[in-house]
């Protein structure tokens, strides 16, 4: 992916090397592992045969892709530049609601501008980027902690404003005569409809009337694909979801490509220097403020796009959605920390592990248990669950635990974080430091770095205090 500059032949060679030595192979292996696990889950849980398995794997991939996108966007801020943005949910909300305002039909309630899909997407990204600039301008002049405070406050202000009834429907330009009135709104608690959304292009492959499939015909392609999947018991809706999930995967690839490109360039080198020591970057003549503002805007635009792809596919949203809550920001942060801040592969990796094992996995475990073990009705309070256990009747406690698995996920997440911080504080792949340059720095006009002497080759010349651990880490770091 990163090798797209090179000639085709070397691209192929690099791609195969990339696959063999690391990233693509690693991600594939992890995804296969997750698929195997969830296939077992699907078989064990009260499912509908092969169709159920396919639907399960689709759901896992769907959540993986969504998290991977957002984690990659956050990696640009936190992993690359060290900008502590804890308002991810707010920037997603700005993207989603801008999209909604631009694309919702003019006759809707609340009404929108009825513009095409792509205008909505581009507009959503632009406004999210502008919101980022607005936040960044004052906050980036201060220390890192202030950016964190400002961003988390921003995300809550956005969410609460959207919830406010005073913005449910409002008219712009009503007092200015020559500009036509423009009625928009957030819909507040009642939410907003988005009949035009990114699933439409996917649906239009299968249906002649994608906005309302029931009122139209199935296309030729749709017939073929649906009947093919029907033979293994997969429903139409699942097929459409698979189509949308593939679209999401394409976006993950796009995010990954963009970040790699940003990272492996002189621009990315300055970002890395800012993360390490901003005063040094400044003293070397880099206008770090401009770099920070630019990268903050790009990251926010990506978060806006991620939000749009995440939230609008249901065709409806309202401010109470979990997507816009601060907890979402922390989920994304946790996924980034698990994978390893600073590593793009780690970001995808963390997104996959979080979405599947920590987020979806416990629900399946709960379902499987309740299928095989009859525990009776779960008590409604903790006391009700614990009291019988004192007389050695553990069934109510177990039933209570299973019933509350969605909440217990937090305990699990906390546990994973504690174990990770103790054993691998940099995350699973955070120790791999990718070199920030558009070319291989160890090569020089024909002669390679090996000729100049690799650090691994002259361990004897290493200064005191070099830890063998970091030595081996840097020895294994050369990934294209």
């Amino acid at each position, binding site marked *: 992916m990163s090798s*797209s*500059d090179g000639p085709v032949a070397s691209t192929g060679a690099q791609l195969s090397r990339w696959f063999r030595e690391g990233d693509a192979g690693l991600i594939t292996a992890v995804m296969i592992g997750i698929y195997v696990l969830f296939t077992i889950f699907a078989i064990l849980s009260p499912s509908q045969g092969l169709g159920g398995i396919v639907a399960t794997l689709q759901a896992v991939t769907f959540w993986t892709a969504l998290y991977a996108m957002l984690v990659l966007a956050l990696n640009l801020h936190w992993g690359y530049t060290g900008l502590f943005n804890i308002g991810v949910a707010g920037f997603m909300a700005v993207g989603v609601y801008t999209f909604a305002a631009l694309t919702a039909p003019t006759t809707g309630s609340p009404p929108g501008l009825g513009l095409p899909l792509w205008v909505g997407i581009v507009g959503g990204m632009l406004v999210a980027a502008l919101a980022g600039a607005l936040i960044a301008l004052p906050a980036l002049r201060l*220390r890192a902690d202030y950016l964190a405070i400002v961003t988390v406050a921003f995300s809550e202000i956005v969410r609460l404003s959207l919830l406010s009834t005073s913005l449910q429907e409002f008219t712009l330009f009503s007092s200015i005569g020559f500009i036509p009135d423009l009625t928009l709104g957030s819909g507040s608690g009642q939410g907003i409809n988005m009949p035009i959304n990114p699933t439409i292009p996917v649906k239009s492959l299968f249906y002649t009337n994608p906005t309302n499939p029931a009122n139209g015909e199935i296309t030729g392609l749709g017939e073929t694909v649906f009947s093919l999947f029907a033979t293994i018991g997969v429903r139409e809706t699942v097929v459409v979801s698979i189509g949308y999930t593939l679209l999401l995967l394409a976006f993950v690839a796009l995010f990954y490509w*963009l970040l790699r*490109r*940003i990272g492996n*360039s*002189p*621009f*990315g*080198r*300055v970002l*890395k*220097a800012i*993360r*390490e*020591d*901003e*005063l*040094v*970057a*400044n*003293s*070397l*003549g*880099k*206008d*770090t403020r401009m*770099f920070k503002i*630019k*990268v903050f805007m*790009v990251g926010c635009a990506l978060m806006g796009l991620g939000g749009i792809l995440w939230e609008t596919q249901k065709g409806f949203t309202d401010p109470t959605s979990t997507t816009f809550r601060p907890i979402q920001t922390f989920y994304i942060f946790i996924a980034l920390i698990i994978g390893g801040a600073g590593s793009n592969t780690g970001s995808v990796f963390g997104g996959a592990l979080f979405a599947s094992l920590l987020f979806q996995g416990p629900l399946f475990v709960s379902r499987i248990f309740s299928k095989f073990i009859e525990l009776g009705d779960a008590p409604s309070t903790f006391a009700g669950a614990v009291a019988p256990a004192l007389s050695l009747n553990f069934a109510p406690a177990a039933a209570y635990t299973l019933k509350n698995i969605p909440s217990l996920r937090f305990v699990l997440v906390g546990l994973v974080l504690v174990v990770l911080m103790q054993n691998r504080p940099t995350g699973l792949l955070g120790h791999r*430091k990718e*070199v*920030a*340059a*558009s*070319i291989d*720095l*160890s*090569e*020089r*006009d024909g002669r390679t*770095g090996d000729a*100049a*002497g*690799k*650090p691994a080759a*002259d361990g004897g*010349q*290493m*200064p*005191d*205090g*070099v*830890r063998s651990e*970091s*030595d081996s880490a*840097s020895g294994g770091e*050369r990934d294209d």
Partner: protein
Amino acid sequence: MTDNDAPVDSAGDGGAESAVSAETASPGGAGDAASERSEAVDASLVVEDLSKSFGGINAVNEVSFTVERGSLTGLIGPNGAGKSTTFNLITGVHEPDSGRVTFEGSDLTGRRTNEIAQDGLVRTFQIARELEEMTVLENLMLAPRAQSGEKLVNAVTPGLRGRVREEERDIRERVWETLELFEIDHLAEEHAGNLSGGQRKLLELARALMLDPTMMLLDEPFAGVNPTLEEKLLDRIHELREEGLTFLLVEHDMDLIMENCEHVVVMHQGQLLAQGPPAEIRTNERVIDAYLGEDI
């Protein structure tokens, strides 16, 4: 966080200041001397009546001196004399309360650190500030000015990236040459955080050189450096000076300054104590008084 514990330094000054202020040089007199000198010599850097106080403590008080183009000028003084603060004022890390800094004829006062570096006035730090998680190669690749790939559009857009790569190849060649010059090419792919103290000093100097500066401010470049390496660094500095670079050097080691610098500026408790050729400084009574009983 950003300043080299300047406020702490100055706190030391402030405590003793009231007691000794009567004995220290009259700042006005020193200032006049400096401006006289600036007319006489071909000045690269002119510092005039520079003052900075932190919460009522005068870290730097009406300091004036000039650095001749192509010279190796030493800036000495006991701990807490305000040397690092002076550096921070010259390089725009702190904004002076009053006074003026002129570099190659243009006024630097109030300008931002990065702009000053772009103008060719580059500094190193007292405690080497290498970029730990970046390799030695990356550290050096970072420095060159006006890299087109530092523009996001050029870095990302497919058609424009070819030129960036071309430019990077040229810089890479210069980086390797510089690494060889400083004899740290065997550490090229090592992370800067893994280098020894002396190697970090070499790295900092090499990195600063990649900017093609006209003048370098070196803040204790020999601190924590073994004698062999110190010799090597000094040789490098003398070579660069012969090529036309100007140096202002902060150093604690009096002998080293006396042997290598042709002009010495002495600071004490935020004020200018004396300036002149080493021989003169060596016999200056005020300097001897200031250093008496101090560990130099």
